[in-house]
């Protein structure tokens, strides 16, 4: 009894077969995507190994256009593909016509090296269990007060193939190794804030070092949040860690640049292309073509080649991301920018691939050596409104720097408007830190933020 063998080539064959079947059943245009993944992992709970998992699955998605009407269906059972095509055709028949619907033509392929490493693909449960054991032991050796609520170590490989009636035919193979920890520090009656740490890579060799970094990062975050005191209410400077910079500042800025939101009148970034929308310290580049990186890939959700693009230079907005539909809707002369996003179970959306923020010129030591009270936002847990730009939320595992002293705080809220925050950034650190084994971000300081302490 052996497992069925899945390869990028036979996935592409299945996509071709489905594409032809859909055209025979009456589709005007069709795009078929297949995604297969297999992984071996161990999960932790309550500071102990909980479960070992050996898994694999293939999912197929079909986008059909009939009389300029759109239908989409997905399944994880190839033998039921005819029913899936009927679902997509029925949805298209019930839908409204839209002249913008269509599929992109094929473009020349690009090659991105280092996305697949056989050593990661061939890892078994025993190897990930041993790594998991090391991760648990390392955390406990650093400090027994640190408690792991959940976590995992896993490795695997995946393939993706796309075939369309316009001639797009592509496939790719990738591998991954990852680790993740979630928990808190507990000391007597004092329970610290949640912390998350993780790391990842394309290859297994050398991953023990990343396990070690993950354990150290997790312990530093959880222990730093113990015994917090009261904060302070003021309006002024706030310092964001690389993790908070990535999630609150860059993440929300990129979200506002989604062309679908702009088209629907739901983004304050409409008509802002080639305008200054952030402080001159901000330069953002999307580059998913860097070899060997976890977020790199050769083609997007529509099989279009990835490319490097400058999003923002010195605060000036230079480009927006597009998939085929949004490029047609926005009359973009060059068409799609290779930034269609999503998996096999959904229609293509739009997203940046792998965004880097340029480091600044201020040392972290200088940023911490402040004369005015400054809250350090380690993690932001709150609400952001992509339509109005308003944000408000709790500073998690934060600190107050005041009078040369840095101490942990609790029950502190920050609020303001993201559009102001982007412009009010007045310092960016030289130092950068990788977020979960992915892109590295700097520390960022902004002024004019409302801080409310409980």
């Amino acid at each position, binding site marked *: 009894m052996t497992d069925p063998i899945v390869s990028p080539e036979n996935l592409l064959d299945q996509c071709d077969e489905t594409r032809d079947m859909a055209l025979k059943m009456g589709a005007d245009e069709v795009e078929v995507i297949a995604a297969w993944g297999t992984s071996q992992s161990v999960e932790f709970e309550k500071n102990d190994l909980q479960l070992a998992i*050996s898994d694999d699955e293939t999912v197929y998605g079909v986008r059909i256009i009939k009389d300029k009407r759109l239908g989409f269906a997905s399944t994880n059972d190839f033998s039921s593909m005819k029913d899936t095509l009927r679902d997509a055709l029925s*949805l298209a028949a019930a839908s409204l016509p839209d002249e913008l619907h269509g599929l992109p033509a094929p473009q020349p392929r690009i090659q991105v090296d280092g996305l697949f490493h056989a050593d990661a693909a061939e890892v078994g449960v025993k190897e990930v269990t041993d790594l998991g054991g090391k991760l648990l032991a390392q955390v406990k050796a650093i400090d027994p007060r640190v408690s792991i*609520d959940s976590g995992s170590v896993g490795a695997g490989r995946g393939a993706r193939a796309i075939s369309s009636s316009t001639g797009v035919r592509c496939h790719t193979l990738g591998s991954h190794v990852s680790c993740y920890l979630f*928990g808190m520090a*507990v000391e007597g009656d004092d329970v610290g804030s949640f912390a998350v740490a993780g790391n990842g890579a394309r290859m297994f060799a050398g991953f023990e070092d990343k396990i070690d970094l993950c354990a150290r990062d997790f312990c530093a975050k959880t222990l730093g949040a113990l015994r917090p005191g009261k904060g302070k209410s003021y309006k002024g400077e706030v310092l964001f860690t690389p993790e908070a910079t990535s999630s609150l500042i860059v993440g929300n800025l990129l979200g506002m640049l989604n062309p679908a939101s702009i088209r629907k009148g739901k983004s304050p970034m409409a008509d802002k292309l080639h305008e200054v929308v952030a402080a001159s310290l901000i330069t953002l580049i999307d580059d998913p073509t860097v070899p060997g990186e976890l977020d790199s890939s050769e083609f997007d959700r529509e099989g279009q080649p990835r490319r490097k693009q400058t999003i923002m230079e010195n605060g000036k907005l230079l480009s927006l991301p597009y998939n085929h539909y949004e490029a047609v809707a926005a009359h973009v002369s060059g068409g799609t920018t290779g930034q269609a996003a999503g998996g096999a179970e959904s229609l293509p959306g739009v997203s940046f691939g792998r965004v880097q923020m340029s480091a600044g010129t201020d040392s972290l030591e200088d940023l911490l050596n402040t004369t005015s009270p400054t809250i350090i936002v380690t993690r932001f847990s709150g609400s952001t409104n992509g339509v109005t730009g308003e944000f408000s939320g709790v500073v998690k595992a934060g600190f107050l720097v005041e009078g040369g002293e840095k101490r942990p705080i609790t029950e502190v809220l920050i*609020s303001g408007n993201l559009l102001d925050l982007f412009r009010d950034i007045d310092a960016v650190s030289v130092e950068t830190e990788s977020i979960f084994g992915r892109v590295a971000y700097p520390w960022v300081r902004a002024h004019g933020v409302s801080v*409310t302490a409980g």
Partner: protein
Amino acid sequence: MAAEIRKLLKQVVDQQTGFVELRYSGKTSRSVVVEKGKVEAASVKRRCGVGVRVLEQGTWGFSSTGATDEASITRAIKRAKDAARASAGQRQASISTLPPAALAQGDFDDPSAVEVDAISLDEKLDLARITEERTRAESPRITSASCAYSEIDERKAIVTSDGADTSFRILRPEFRVQAVAESKGILSVANESIGVTGNWDCLFRGDRKSKMVSDAAKFAIDLLEAEKPAGGRATVILAPSIVGLLVHEAIGHTVEADFVQSGSVAQGKIGQRVGSDLVTLCDSGFSEYAGGAGGTMPIDDEGVYTKRATIIDKGILTSYLHNRESAAHFGVEPTGNARAWDFCDQPIIRMRNTYLEPGDSTLDQMIAGMQDGYLLDGPKNGQADATGEFMFAVQNAWRIKNGKRGPLVKGVTLSGVAFDVMQTVDAVSSEFRWELGSGYCGKGQPAKVDAGGPYVRCQVLLGGTQE
């Protein structure tokens, strides 16, 4: 379908040794989204397969297969057993056996699913299209609107080697309306949503559709002119929607037994006072007090009958939420809280319908008794910490002054430490609503849950502007 698969699962389980749990899930998710007069998405997602969990050499092994034939399931069992054996040496606290439990047998189909099946795709799309059009027509200041209808139709079968042998079908429809208003270049947005376990009568009971349209448009317009509140400590009345968020996020998660064992703030607090006498908090697989709660389920994903768990009784912490493994650890009965989202997810401890029991005040009495404060309704999002510290963003907040409801304010977030806030509860209304049925809870995998309760008056920290 699930009943047929159940027979196959039973046949496969009977050939195995040791503890084996087979769980079939066949899920069809339908969704239509209309925005600004366009059909933005129309999709059907079908996903089915069998999840296999085994207890081997004192630890768990898990595998799954998207194929539902005997050979594929047997192969998945072997992979799960191999995985367990390969990892057993690293487990410190091995599991010797699971406690006996009331394991379900038989079929438990929800008959309402058949009624929604009879409604055509055209009708569902028309519903979204017309509702979106009506929302835009509410006012010239509404510049954009959207409406989404979705449903998850799930069939499950669970068979274990120690006696569970059951199948059921659950239908969960949802409906969402969003309005975007604009004035002088300023945008504002308001959302209304509902989600139930049940049929369309349950989803759209009363005049809900029309109210969602008018409320979304009205709030989006009113928020254009609204001021931000000053930040600081405040007396507030939490509407059932915010009470639901509070009891789910800030208390419910801290009493999930796996999290308790990791050291959550609820550890060691059974029998201690964590709220005022007015606070009685429960989690139930049934739709208590009002019909259609979104997390309703007859059987959990370990095959255990669901039941009501009283977590806090008149202010005293009385119970955690358990699966079979944690129940064995704490020496109590499982509460039916083991849940898995898809066949490829393993069952973990999750909430179902979490709520605060109603009291005997009225909302008018509660407002009349306040000199200064806020009425908070319409959750936008929320998170809580291991410490019970929570943060919720609120869409609709009204100032209360001298016993009267005043104007809407915007950009409100509230925060506090859950057990501390529960101690400040001084009034609870008799009116009760389920409000979070369109929400999903995340804990590594999604879960459909619901939460709600009465109106509750208490003290919290409000985020806002500082001079």
